[in-house]
């Protein structure tokens, strides 16, 4: 089965080509059929591969030599193992649902743009699959850049709006900063080890000095920061909500942003051997989780809330990675993919129903208009808030437990973040679905449940959000029920060996922690629902901390003041002073010199063919004279000098 | 269109006229060869056709009875000139080609001239003559008539002014054979073919 792995990225690529080239001639139904169908086929192949891996273990499939020089051999190879097959399923599965959803959500677009959208989406899936499947950092980097490009294209999909274009550009530039780190890390690896293939790198990792490992992991983490929106490179993600909502669901919740997690999980051995980096990862992750959660508390745009929530959840994943709970991180990636995709799609459904109104203050009481969306959204909120037995509970609990065993401080800060999560999610839920409707009458009149293409993915994802966590039930509940850990064990075996036997918490302590947290969360939820149930639209200015939070801690302004403005000033200085007087003068001087010289030399070139030939013949005569009489000429010269 | 309508009303003079066809040529026609061979067969068949040529000096076409050739001044049976120089012919001539001078017959010349007056000089400018035959009709004495001789040749224009010695018929008494020949009584070889 493994040798057919190339089919997985092939179908999205074909879909991209067909939709991209035939965008002027294909009908909308054909476009959506091709776009979604190609992902569905990929999903089926991924399933087969998954079961194959489960039964027979992983393998590496080399398609051809990509870069083949004397010192560096980089094959175009696909790594198929437990980790990548799991990600394949997430990408293609959720990807298919979102494609299906998109076919209805984007139906108002004109046919060529509709095709363009699906082509971008397919290209994105292709790149993401390449990222996940690559058997070395170079292939991964290709996919890494591919998803960056697609993200840029999709965020700026409505390119007639300039703000969206700026958002797209911001995402692109932020990602580039991270990518530079990634690229440097890959070069570092290549120069030290001469290879970028995972198996070779991990086998030879012990030959690297600790400085090298730390530097490489730091640089890789910079890459992850950019892609996975961690402090300080997180600001692009909220702005990226400019894109169509399914895009946010696919890229900014389920797949692309988890690329950083995947990359670190993939390189777990390197990180295990670099404790300093691990600590940094954990701290950054935790900081991001809290920081983003605080911002999310006061956001009023439905998608912005979800965006900051995503950033926050990503912080949790990094926390997991930082404390060595790789399985937990991956587990959270999976569950997060389910419920965050669901949330985004639900939000999309709401926005669809509200005619592109995104401000939650102007919604409310949608419960009775959109039952399916309401139920699924509620389930997702419960999942993300960490109420057992929904999926979020298990994954978040695993990370927090691991964090506690590393450092109790991590745990408490993490729990604080979780409480905030519960609060802002239910604030969102309450404002949207409960209370009374605060929008215009026209909107109220048009409120409706979304078509089946949109509700079907919601239902599927809701089911997954509910039961998705049951593959990782902690040991304390049921012995050996954590099937995900067993499945992923081979990937993290090496790290586990290095990290040594982690000391398990006592079961009672664990029960206590879970119970306490859950109780606190339920209280917070009740508080949130209660305080926002009667919410009325008011014009009064927010002040103090609220204002700070509403303005996202003024981070964008800070960046502008600290980085962007000085840089622009410097560029202005170079442009106006250095270039004008120095470089231009030099370049123009050379040009003038050459111009003068050629004006003089041009006199030689009369344009008369006869003269040229005459000179040519004379040249031949002289040449023959010298060539065949060199001895005589040398004698003559000797005599003279 | 107009042409076609006119054609309908126009009466065909012969049945050999053929309508021009502007149809694009068929493949066989584009080959040309059949048409060429047909044409060559037609020309080849002409090898065996009878030649209509009359080999002129030897063979001649028979003249019609009213043919009007060069003029002849006649004599009577005794060889005397019939012309009495009355000038009626010169008057009748529409081209004014005839001139003459009359003279009195002297005694002893009765055997030469039939009347008392005769033409001492009688000239016809053959370049002016239109061979209308009016002189012949005007002559009261049957002295001038138009023969079957035609297409005279000469080196100078003067030579075409025929005098009496060119015009007078040979004497039937002294040169009977030449006379017979000039009268056309003794048939020369004429064209047997038509």
């Amino acid at each position, binding site marked *: 089965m493994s040798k057919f792995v190339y089919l997985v990225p092939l179908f999205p690529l074909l879909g991209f080509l067909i939709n991209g080239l035939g965008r002027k001639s294909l009908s909308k139904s054909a476009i959506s059929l091709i776009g979604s169908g190609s992902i569905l086929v990929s999903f089926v192949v991924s399933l087969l591969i998954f079961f194959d891996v489960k039964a027979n273990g992983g393998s590496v499939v080399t398609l051809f030599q990509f870069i083949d020089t004397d010192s560096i051999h980089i094959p175009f190879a696909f790594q198929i193992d437990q980790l990548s097959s799991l990600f394949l399923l997430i990408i293609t599965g959720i990807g298919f649902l979102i494609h299906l959803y998109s076919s209805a959500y984007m139906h108002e677009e004109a046919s060529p743009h509709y095709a363009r959208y699906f082509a971008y989406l397919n290209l994105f899936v292709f790149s993401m699959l390449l990222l996940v499947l690559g058997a070395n950092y170079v292939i991964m980097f290709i996919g890494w850049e591919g998803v960056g490009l697609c993200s840029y294209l999709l965020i700026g999909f409505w390119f007639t709006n300039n703000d969206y274009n700026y958002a797209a550009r911001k995402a692109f530039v932020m990602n580039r900063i991270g990518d530079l780190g990634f690229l440097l890390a890959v070069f570092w690896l290549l120069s030290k080890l001469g290879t970028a293939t995972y198996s070779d790198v991990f086998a030879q990792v012990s030959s690297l000095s600790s400085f090298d490992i730390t530097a490489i992991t730091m640089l890789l983490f910079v890459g992850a920061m950019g892609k996975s929106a961690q402090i300080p490179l997180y600001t692009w993600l909220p702005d990226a909500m400019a894109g169509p909502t399914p895009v946010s669901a696919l890229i900014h919740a389920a797949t692309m942003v988890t690329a950083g997690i995947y990359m670190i999980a993939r390189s777990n051995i390197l990180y295990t051997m670099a404790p300093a980096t691990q600590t940094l990862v954990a701290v950054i992750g935790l900081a991001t989780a809290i920081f983003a959660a605080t911002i999310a508390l006061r956001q009023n745009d439905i998608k912005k809330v979800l965006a900051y929530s995503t950033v926050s959840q990503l912080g949790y994943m990094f926390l997991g990675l930082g404390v060595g709970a790789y399985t937990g991180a991956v587990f959270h990636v999976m569950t997060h993919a389910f419920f965050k995709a669901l949330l985004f799609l639900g939000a999309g459904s709401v926005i669809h129903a509200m005619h592109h109104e995104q401000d939650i203050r102007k919604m409310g009481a949608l419960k009775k208009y959109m039952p399916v969306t309401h139920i699924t959204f509620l389930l997702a909120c419960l999942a993300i808030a960490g109420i057992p037995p929904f999926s979020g509970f298990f994954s978040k609990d695993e990370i927090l437990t691991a964090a506690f065993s590393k450092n109790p401080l991590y745990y408490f800060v993490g729990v604080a973040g979780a409480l905030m999560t519960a609060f802002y999610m239910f604030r969102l839920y309450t404002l949207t679905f409960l209370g009374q409707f605060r929008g215009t009458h026209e909107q109220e009149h048009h409120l409706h449940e979304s078509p089946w293409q949109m509700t079907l993915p919601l239902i599927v994802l809701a089911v997954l959000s509910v039961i998705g966590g049951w593959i990782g039930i902690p040991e304390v509940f049921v012995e050996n029920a954590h099937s995900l850990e067993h499945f992923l064990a081979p990937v993290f075996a090496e790290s586990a060996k290095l990290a040594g036997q982690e000391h398990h918490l006592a079961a009672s302590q664990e029960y206590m922690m879970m119970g306490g947290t859950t109780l606190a969360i339920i209280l917070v939820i009740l508080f949130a629902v209660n305080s926002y149930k009667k919410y009325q639209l008011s014009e009064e200015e927010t002040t103090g901390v609220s204002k700070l939070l509403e303005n996202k801690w003024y981070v964008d302004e800070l960046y502008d003041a600290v980085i962007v403005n000085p840089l622009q000033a410097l560029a202005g200085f170079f442009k106006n002073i250095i270039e004008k007087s120095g470089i231009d003068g030099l370049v123009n001087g050379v040009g003038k010199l050459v111009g003068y010289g050629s004006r003089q030399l041009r006199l030689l070139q009369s344009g008369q063919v*006869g003269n040229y030939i*005459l000179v040519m*013949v*004379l040249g*031949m*005569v002289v040449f*023959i*004279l010298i060539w*065949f009489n060199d001895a005589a000429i040398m004698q003559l010269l000797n005599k003279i000098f | 269109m107009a042409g076609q309508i006119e054609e309908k009303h126009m009466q065909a003079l012969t049945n050999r006229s053929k309508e021009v066809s502007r149809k694009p040529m068929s493949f066989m026609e584009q080959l040309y060869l059949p048409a060429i061979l047909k044409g060559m067969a037609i020309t080849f068949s002409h090898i065996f056709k009878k030649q209509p040529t009359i080999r002129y000096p030897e063979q001649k076409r028979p003249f019609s009875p009213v043919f009007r050739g060069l003029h002849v001044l006649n004599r009577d049976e005794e060889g005397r000139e019939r012309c009495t120089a009355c000038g009626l012919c010169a008057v009748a001539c529409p081209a004014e080609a005839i001139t003459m001078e009359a003279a009195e017959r002297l005694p002893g010349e009765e055997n030469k001239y039939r009347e008392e007056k005769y033409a001492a000089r009688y000239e016809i400018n053959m370049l002016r003559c239109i061979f209308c035959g009016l002189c012949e009709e005007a002559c009261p004495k049957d002295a001038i008539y138009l023969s079957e001789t035609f297409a005279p040749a000469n080196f100078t224009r003067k030579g075409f002014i025929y005098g009496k010695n060119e015009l007078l018929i040979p004497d039937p008494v002294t040169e009977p054979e030449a006379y017979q020949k000039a009268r056309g009584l003794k048939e020369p070889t004429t064209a047997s073919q038509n």
Partner: protein
Amino acid sequence: MSTTEILFFFLTALAIFSAIMVLVSKNPVHSVLWLIAVFFAISGHYILLNAQFLAIVNLIVYAGAIMVLFLFVIMLMNLNAETEPQKHIWMKLAGAISGGCFLMMLVSLVRQASELNGKTALMAEGNIGLIKNLGKALFSDYVVPFEITSVLFLSAMVGAVVIGKK
């Protein structure tokens, strides 16, 4: 002196004389005709070398086709001695002198080349110039170049037509 030698020197003299006449003729048509004479002389040389095929091909291609084209063009343009552009006398002199120098250099080189001594070209014998042998070599060892020349011809044809149609 054998007949071959007499013929050789005769043809050589004819060729060189005609070639010079090509240069000095003021009338382009005369130049063309003298050039044809050169080609005839060279064909004669080919026959002396028993390269019959080349001799006749030389005639057909050069005299029969190429020079007809030249003549054609000259006649079409109605070029004659009066319209013939003339170079400055100094340029002519310079050209003649440098060409002469070139000839002198090469001749002196050949004179120095001792490995040529005693080498002769086989006259009036040998069958490699016969069409049979040439054909065999052409269609076995040189078949690819031969095919390529056909492509060259085609492109030349197309090129000439395109240029001429403008």
